[in-house]
């Protein structure tokens, strides 16, 4: 079983779970498919030998984001198929958009794809935790800090939007 076959299987799995996420009627099912999808993506990362990244990926996406989403679903008691039927037109238009976008992007890439025979092999370590940490905290120190501002804003925002304010009533 060559690596390529593994890739194909994994890719098919990724796409399939992604697609199922999108089309599942039950939000819970969608969420579960999405988690599977995330895992498959983590699998891809592993194939690249990016262990740290795949770990972080699973922690952040599956562990944090999906939990948050699921939590919200539970909170709102949405775990049933309560989505009314969409009208045909919007379905068709979504399908058209999907087809068009997919076709255009794929066609574009196929058309513009350079022929790559040899791949760079630096032979150096570029994706171990150590290297990543160095890059992140040296070169990318400012963005790293700035990301904290981003998270701070999100935090303030989340509080601002969801906190029941008592002063107005």
């Amino acid at each position, binding site marked *: 079983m060559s690596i390529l076959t593994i890739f194909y299987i994994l890719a098919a799995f990724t796409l399939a779970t992604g697609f199922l996420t999108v089309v599942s009627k039950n939000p819970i099912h969608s969420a579960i498919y999405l988690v599977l999808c995330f895992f498959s993506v983590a699998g891809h990362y592993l194939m690249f030998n990016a262990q740290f990244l795949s770990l972080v990926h699973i922690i952040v996406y599956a562990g944090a984001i999906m939990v948050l989403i699921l939590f919200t679903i539970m909170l709102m008691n949405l775990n049933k198929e309560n989505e009314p039927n969409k009208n045909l037109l*919007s379905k068709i238009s979504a399908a058209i*958009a999907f087809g*068009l976008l997919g076709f*255009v992007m794929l066609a574009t890439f196929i*058309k513009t794809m350079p022929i790559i025979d040899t791949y760079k092999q630096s032979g150096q370590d570029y994706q171990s935790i150590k290297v990543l940490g160095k890059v992140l905290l040296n070169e990318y120190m400012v963005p790293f800090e700035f990301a904290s501002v981003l998270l701070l804003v999100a935090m303030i925002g989340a509080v601002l939007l969801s906190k029941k304010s008592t002063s107005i009533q």
Partner: protein
Amino acid sequence: MEKNLALVLVLAPFFGFLANIFFGKKAGKGFVGLLGTLSILISFFATTYFFMQIQSTGKPIEVKLFPWIALESFQIDMSFLLDQLSVLWLLFVTGIGTLIHMYSISYMHDDENMHKFFAYLNLFVFFMITLVMGSNLLVMFIGWEGVGLCSYLLIGFWYKNQDYNDAAKKAFIMNRVGDLGLLIGIFILAYVFGSLDYHLIARDIFSQELSATDSALISIAALCLFIGATGKSAQIPLYTWLPDAMAGPTPVSALIHAATMVTAGIFMVTRLNFVFDLAPNVQTIIAVIGAGTAIVAAAIGLVQNDIKKVLAYSTVSQLGLMFLALGLGAYEVAVFHVITHAFFKACLFLGSGSVIHALHGEQDMRNMGGLKKVMPITFWTMMISTLAISGIFPFAGFWSKDEILMTAFHGNTILWVVGSIASIMTAFYMFRLMYLTFFNDFRGTEHQKKHLHESPALITIPLVILAILAAVGGLISLPGNSWLNHYLAPLFHKAHEAHHLDGTAYMLMGIATVGALVGIGMAYAKYLKKQEVPEQDSEITGIAKVLYNKFYVDEAYEMLIVNPLYKLSHFFRKYIETAVSELLFGLGKVTNSIGNQGKLVQNGSVGVYLFAFVLGLSSILIYLFLV
């Protein structure tokens, strides 16, 4: 000295006008009349001085005042020219003007706006003097339009009556039609000769060969100028305003619409005789139109019942005869008839005014009659003038009309026949007028009858003077020994053979006299012998009806020109205006409908928005990479 005197000549009436309009009301009617008359009299005296001067030296006097309009190729000055023609014209303009002013003192005495009347009359004389004295066409044009304005003001003098105002308006507008022609003619002359000065144009014409284009242009110019003349001098096709103009007070009719203003066309043609001489085709047109006007107007005059309307048509007819003469190149003959016509026609109008005055405004001859005994002076003066206009020897009209017919006879027999018939008709309707007015019994109301009286001296004196002039005016140009021809000779550049007193001449005189007598006889038979009175308006039938309604020319104009114009106006206003606005509003509507479509797309659904997003993205990628 001469310059100052010329200024006095021009400005005296103008000051009369100013004084009357500003102070007339306060100063009182006596002052107004006196001032008005005196200011003209001063002009008259000044004219007499110049007349003497020119008689003795024969040299024209030019008075340059100041530059007026500057054009790139030449400049138009405000300047005056006193030569044989203008002085002659001034003489009878101011002379008759003085008489008529005098007459008006009494005639208008009861009108509350007498000061305005005199002011307008003075203004008229001022403009008439400008017209005559201008040394170039444009100064003449000031006078030309100015007299038109005064005519407008005076016709509509009784402005409370909207019919009178319409008549005034009509006069002004029809004159303006002619004025446009005149203006175009002026443009052409200016273009060809680079000047509008009479002298310079004449000098150019005689000093150099004219190219073919120039000759053609001059022909057009002559035609345009003649169109101008038809407006002012009431010729076909623009004559219809003159009968309507009788709405004005009678002295106005006498001064403006008989003696002076309407002869401006003849003056202009005579003034520019050297131009017309270059355009023989146009001269033919002038002659034909003159003859046509003469007979058409005479025919209409046959059946009119309003005393002033009869005289108005008579005027048109006589003017036609003058143009006939002009068209045949006999300028001095036309001038001669202008002068005699001024005398007798002014007299006739003033006489009719006297009658109307006596009858408290009655103008319908069917309600007159038998006034001979009550108003002897009026009767006799009018009788003399009637004889003169009918061409009875030895009154003034005989000589001048005879000259015209003789010229016509030599020029073109048909024109002569037409002119002669017009003359016969003239004799007929003039005597019809006399018989209906003065003979038989009075047909008016009892009230009127009680108050019948002869007019006061201020009215009769001018009548008498004019009657005398009408009787002896012919003396200035007796056949064979014409002072007038001699006097005017320097003006004309084309040698014009004088008529000899030969057999033909006597024969023609005889025919004319017999013709006149026939006309008189018919009138006598119909109106004195049978004592017929014209039927009421509704009973008129047949040809008479056509004539009575003036060949329906007014109606035709109304239908062919006025109504289409108003319809066009309506059409423009209703359709073109809206169409143009709608076109532009249409653009607004298009944007609005685009906006509405846009509003439909902007339907609040995120799906649609994202769809548009994806479409935009895709099309950009397609455009960049796949096309």
